[in-house]
């Protein structure tokens, strides 16, 4: 109950943010929403199913290029259509990729997904006529819920209607994921992560459930990719590059993959940490890497794990001193 209230409070704060925050920080919130959605899906596969993919940037790329193809090539502007096309495109690509990948686990799964990601990146890079090669493809401003917002300047569009659109989308994506992970489907995934053989004893179709998790994670990542592409106005092959897959892993580890909100916290922290470091030093990558190393060593459960530990200590300090019950005498006495 307390966590539900906290989430509602956070959503309310995010809804009020455009009234108080500057435009620069509001534009940073768009990638946060994008990664928040993508990582909710990514963590279904990593945190809940126990499969660490190093190739999910592939699906972020599919979302971005779907947005580009629909707006630039087909001349359609509906963002709802872009989201559906991104999800469907990712779903269709994820079927063969997932079917081949979920046969394996651990490093083999990671390497296989990395290989598929690299294949897709090569395709984007080399097939210039279709994808625009290293220059990428332009993503034109979409309409939101049928409203043509082309009269707004880019910043006003991103910090106004698009901000709220993405916030609502993150809310719905989060709610859908919350229901999923707390349904029998989610419990099956947790069981598979803990011990796939044990799960099979109980009749769980391990590979099928892993495939479902893979497909769902791909669709979430693609929707995140579509938002990223709209915010920059470009579908860039770097979105599908393996270092971007590494960033997804980084964000989830930073926030804490064992917690439902961990990926969202990770996305937020990563974006603002990266932004601050980039403004401070040209060696920002070094400090970002050092931060990840420190977090893995000191707080393996990520920032959410750290917050939970601090909360637990606070509650323990607030709680009344424990009472020792003397069974022999049938009396109660308070510890000194």
């Amino acid at each position, binding site marked *: 109950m307390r966590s539900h209230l906290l989430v509602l409070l956070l959503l309310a704060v995010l809804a009020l943010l455009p009234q108080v925050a500057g435009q620069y920080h509001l534009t940073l919130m768009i990638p946060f929403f994008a990664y928040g959605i993508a990582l909710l899906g990514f963590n279904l596969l990593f945190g809940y199913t126990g499969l660490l993919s190093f190739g999910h940037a592939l699906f972020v790329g599919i979302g971005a290029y779907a947005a580009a193809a629909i707006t630039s090539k087909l001349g359609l502007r509906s963002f709802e259509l872009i989201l559906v096309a991104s999800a469907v495109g990712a779903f269709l690509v994820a079927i063969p990729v997932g079917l081949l990948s979920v046969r394996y686990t651990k490093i083999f799964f990671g390497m296989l997904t990395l290989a598929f990601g690299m294949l897709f990146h090569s395709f984007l890079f080399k097939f210039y006529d279709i994808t625009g090669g290293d220059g990428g493809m332009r993503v034109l401003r979409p309409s939101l819920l049928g409203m043509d917002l082309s009269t707004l300047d880019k910043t006003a569009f991103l910090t106004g209607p698009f901000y709220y659109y993405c916030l609502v989308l993150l809310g719905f994506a989060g709610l859908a994921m919350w229901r999923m992970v707390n349904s*029998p489907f989610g*419990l*099956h995934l*947790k*069981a598979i*992560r*803990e*011990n796939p*053989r*044990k799960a*099979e*004893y*109980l*009749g*769980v*179709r*391990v590979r099928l459930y892993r495939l479902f998790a893979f497909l769902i994670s791909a669709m979430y990542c693609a929707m995140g990719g579509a938002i990223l592409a709209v915010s920059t106005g470009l579908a860039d092959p770097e979105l599908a590059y393996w270092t971007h897959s590494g960033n997804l892993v980084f964000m989830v580890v930073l926030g804490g993959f064992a917690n439902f909100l961990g990926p969202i916290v990770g996305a937020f922290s990563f974006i603002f940490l990266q932004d601050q470091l980039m403004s401070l030093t040209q060696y920002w990558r070094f400090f970002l890497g050092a931060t990840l190393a420190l977090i893995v060593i000191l707080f393996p459960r990520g920032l959410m794990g750290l917050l939970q530990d601090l909360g637990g200590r606070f509650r323990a300090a607030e709680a009344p001193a424990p009472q020792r019950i003397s069974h022999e005498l049938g009396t109660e006495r308070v510890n000194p």
Partner: protein
Amino acid sequence: MLSLNDITVDIQNSRILRGISLAVGAGELVCLVGRNGAGKTTTLRTVMGFLTPLSGTITFNSQPLPGMPTYRVAQLGIGYAPEESEVFGDLTVEENIEMPTWTRPRGRPALERVELAYKVFPKLRQYAKRGGTQLSGGERKMVSIARALALDAPLLLLDEPSEGLSPAIIPTISEGIASIRKLGRGILMAESNVHHIPDYADRLYVIERGEIIFSGKPGDVRTRPEVMRVITGTA
């Protein structure tokens, strides 16, 4: 119900089972007794589809099992409680027990199956919201058997249900197994300790180095000193 005929199994080029044959009928409690490494767990795992026999047949209700994936064997109605009392630590006791009602939804209603599991091990009801990692060895064993029962399986395979438990908890497990038998479920129980074999067992198979060296009534085994020496570890 379950019938194994002349089953031979190799693991990494070592012959583990050599022509095993046994049968479990509906409502029967059948014990497979043998020392550690004799092939009891391998027999159960072969039934569950984790190992494929080199030769021989396994049928469950006339349906051949070899080659069938494990999840299908479970969905057919064979509940397996492995030796390691495998309980999902991240799931509560309640979720652990409910899980088979989702994987095998046909048959009795889920609520009825879960209630039946709690009826067999009433102590588990008070731990329903407790996580799997917060249970003692005996409680984990109870959850493991209750979960296999919640599959609504006509046949249960129990691998050493008393292994590693304190003497205080063993009677609770034994009572639970007796209750399951009274429900008309067939049970194939692997056991290394001959003293843990219930008196009401219908049939006993003694396995040694992958071969069945005795089959018959539990009382009859005591008239075979050479078999007794094997299962008491004095051979």
